[in-house]
């Protein structure tokens, strides 16, 4: 007898039994052990026909090809850089993936990216051993200038960006800040006024906390305007 133990949109924790019997199939974030389907993470149950999936409420960043990420230069080599993108391996950025400019042999690569610089890069390769290659050649990819770096849990990034970028655009507009959101949960901001910058940062953390709540867009709008209203 098949038994669905949890409801759609219910928040579950690792090991929690979601269904019994063979009728349901485990999908993203769930697994089958014998007669039971169990959760692998803290997440929200999503039923899709016979599939039981989880929308993770918190997650670890696993790089995928074409992810646009924000990374920090950790090491400058002879013809490459090592970049920390918040994963267990440092990512590699080779000279030819960094710039189309002609570089003299033996040139000091610190002239392009030096230690502690932040860059927006795209993941071009993820090997089976999880070695990562990046590129900064491409639209919007570059070294970041003055600003603040904050971190959020990577699974909330889609909510922070919003459908077609709607959420992040709203924040940018209402706070007059430039904002770049990396798929790895690293976010760069730069505003004209510190009060508005703080508002943008607080709004992002607000979304991170309430990502699974219905009507989030309106809540964020109120948050941005309510706070603004307080400022006299």
């Amino acid at each position, binding site marked *: 007898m098949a038994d669905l133990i949890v409801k759609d949109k219910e928040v579950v924790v*690792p090991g*929690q039994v979601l269904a019994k019997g063979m009728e349901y199939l485990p999908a993203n974030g769930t697994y089958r052990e014998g007669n039971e389907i169990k959760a692998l993470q803290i997440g929200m149950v999503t039923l899709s026909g016979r599939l039981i999936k989880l929308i993770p409420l*918190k*997650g670890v960043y696993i790089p995928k090809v074409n992810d646009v990420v924000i990374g920090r230069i950790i090491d400058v080599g002879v013809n490459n850089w090592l970049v920390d993108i918040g994963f267990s*391996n440092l990512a590699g950025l080779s000279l030819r993936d960094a710039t189309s400019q002609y570089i003299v042999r033996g040139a000091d690569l610190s002239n392009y990216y030096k230690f502690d610089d932040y860059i927006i890069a795209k993941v071009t390769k993820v090997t089976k051993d999880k070695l990562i290659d990046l590129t900064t050649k491409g639209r919007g990819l570059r070294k970041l200038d003055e600003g603040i770096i904050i971190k959020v849990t990577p699974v909330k990034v889609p909510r922070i960006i919003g459908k077609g970028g709607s959420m992040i655009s709203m924040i940018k507009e209402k706070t007059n800040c430039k904002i770049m959101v990396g798929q790895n949960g690293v976010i760069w901001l730069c505003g004209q006024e510190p009060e508005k910058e703080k508002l943008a940062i607080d709004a992002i953390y607000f979304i991170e*906390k309430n990502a699974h709540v219905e009507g989030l867009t309106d809540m964020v709008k109120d948050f941005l305007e309510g706070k603004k209203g307080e400022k006299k």
Partner: protein
Amino acid sequence: MKKRKDNRRLDEMRKIEAKVGVIKRANGSAMFRIGDTIAVVAVYGPRSLHPKYLQDPERGILRVYYNMMAFSGSGERIRPGPSRRSREVSMVIEKALTSVLDLKEFPGGVVDVFIEIIQSDSGTRCAGICAASLAIADAGFKMKDLISAVALGRIDNDIYVDVTKDEEDIEGMADVPVAYLPSSGKIVLLQCDGFLKKEQLKEILKIGKKVCLEIYKVQQKALKEGYKK
């Protein structure tokens, strides 16, 4: 019915409390309290592991650092620094946590788990594992199950659940910390200090499993509350 010094029944656990997200900088964190024993855990990772020779090219490694704060014990100050006991406790906790974590997604990397005992009234390694499994879940790792643990004991011919320091100090008692995967009842940590008849061990494991399901309910609630606020 036999009552204990603190008026508990033999099969009764002390009051438990759990909370996640207590250390903001960490990737995941949790506090677990049972009676007067308090453990706080922070998880960092997956992150780069150096030096390179420590890396495992096939999977990430888990490192556990269990430590008792200098003023956490009931007697003299505890000299800071790893002791043989703390290293042994770190290792058994590490083995227990590794059984539920899939680290193949982070080859060459490391997940660091720091366990600090703020206050101790026995059962510290069990409190540590309860908090550690919560902290790892709080960090968003994929885990087959949480881990729930409690220390049972045999005093004379009776089985006691969740022994205190006073009970642990009784001459001739057997101290049995045990940790379970709540959804399957599988055991991931089991130690014994003292004499046990086989039937007594079986009894201990049966009771322990039941008690740990109670602990699991509190752990579940703590994780879910972490997302409501």
